[in-house]
């Protein structure tokens, strides 16, 4: 019997190996909702192993994603940085455009109001195209893109909606040079609003800041800090009532037979982009007539 078993060992074992799973399957199919002892034992073996392998693979994947596979991240980082640069540029451009828009609107309003209120002069818009910087002092002259063609003459007042900038110093071709109020050669007839004295505003060359001096003859107690200084119109160059600046402090100093206050210009000369040149209306109307006669 044993001999017979040994002789056909391959067949017996093979039959057992091939039929046993079928029996398991049959039993398993019959009791689908119940785990047999063998199934429970198998789960006890495989579940912890699966947990450990899951943790290992998860950790390896994490290491790979976070520390090794960074090619995509680097590329994305570069792309995002470029995008940030573009957006930053666009944002700055928007801010600049908005600021330009606001300033130009105020300039336009001021021009309309000025033209309505003044009969002798009219405002011409001009862009600042250059700054004359001296090596020792601040910019005291600026160049604008309007000239003789626009009927601008030397001595014409230059303003912005904030106040007086200075006056035309020289006109050459399509360009003109503007002498700022802070230039030591600048003189403007002014008065302190509302009840202060009249006098002259003189530029003062200063390394640190743009400043001017208000000079007058008699000592007074009617001038206070932050009082507005307006053009008086007595020099027949600047129309009366334009804001020139503000009294810097209450201290009045005597210099010879004059008294003086320091005045901070109303216009920030550092940010000048556009100005208005106040040209004579007579000139504006006269010149075309002269051209027609020719």
């Amino acid at each position, binding site marked *: 019997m044993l001999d017979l078993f040994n002789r056909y060992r391959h067949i017996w074992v093979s039959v057992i190996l091939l039929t046993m799973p079928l029996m398991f399957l049959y*039993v398993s199919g019959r009791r689908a909702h119940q785990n047999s002892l063998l199934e429970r034992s198998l789960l006890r073996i*495989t579940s912890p192993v699966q947990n450990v392998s899951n943790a290992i693979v998860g950790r390896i994947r994490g290491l790979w994603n976070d520390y090794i596979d960074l090619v995509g991240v680097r590329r994305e980082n570069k792309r995002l940085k470029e995008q940030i640069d573009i957006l930053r540029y666009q944002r700055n451009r928007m801010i600049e455009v908005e600021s330009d828009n606001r300033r130009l609107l105020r300039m336009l309003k001021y021009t309309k109001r000025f033209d309505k209120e003044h009969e002798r002069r009219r405002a011409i818009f001009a862009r600042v195209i250059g700054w004359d910087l001296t090596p020792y002092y601040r910019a005291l002259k600026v160049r604008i893109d309007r000239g003789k063609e626009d009927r601008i003459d030397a001595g014409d007042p230059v303003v912005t909606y904030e106040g007086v900038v200075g006056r035309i110093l020289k006109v050459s071709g399509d360009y003109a040079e503007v002498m700022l109020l802070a230039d030591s050669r600048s003189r403007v007839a002014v008065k302190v609003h509302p009840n202060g004295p009249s006098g002259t505003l003189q530029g003062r060359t200063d390394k640190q800041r743009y400043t001017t001096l208000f000079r007058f003859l008699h000592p007074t107690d009617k001038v206070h800090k932050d009082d507005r200084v307006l053009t008086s119109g007595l020099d027949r160059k600047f129309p009366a009532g334009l804001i020139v600046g503000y009294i810097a402090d209450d201290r009045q100093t005597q210099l010879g037979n004059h008294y003086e206050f320091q005045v901070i210009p109303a216009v920030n000369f550092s940010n000048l982009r556009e100005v208005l040149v106040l040209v004579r209306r007579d000139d504006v109307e006269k010149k075309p007539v002269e051209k027609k006669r020719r």
Partner: protein
Amino acid sequence: MRTVLVVFLGFVMLALESPLLYQLRLNFYAPDLALCVIVYLAMTRPLLYGALGAFLLGFFKDGFAGSPMGMYMQILTTAYYLTHYAVERVTIRTWLQLMLLTFCASAVSSTLFFLLSVVFDRNFAHSQLVFKMLIPHALVTAPFAPIVFYLLQRFDKLPATNETRVFFE
């Protein structure tokens, strides 16, 4: 003894296979590494040792795959016998032949899976999916056979042995 070691290696592969494929999101196109081990056993082991190894590996696979008890035991054991039978009659010497053999074994195991599911699983409703995935699954499994063979042969060489190798000698 070496057969037990090969089965153990198959067990490790099974343990790593499931999370690896889950992490790589390759569930449907997962290679059947256990089947590659079975083909290796069929080509290098005596009939009974290999059959016992295949049976054991099927047992473990049932545990990892969550299939009804006996499903992969049956599939892998039957696939083992058929491969063994084929290898006795056909000479397999190149990687391409090996891949072709694994492709056929995979196709047979998918068909067996279908047949056994239809017979023993009353709730089985994925017959179309099984046939749809039969060829892709075999195509994915076949290229892994040379890799598994290479690994197992390295593993087999560890203990001193005079047994002749079929591949990569």
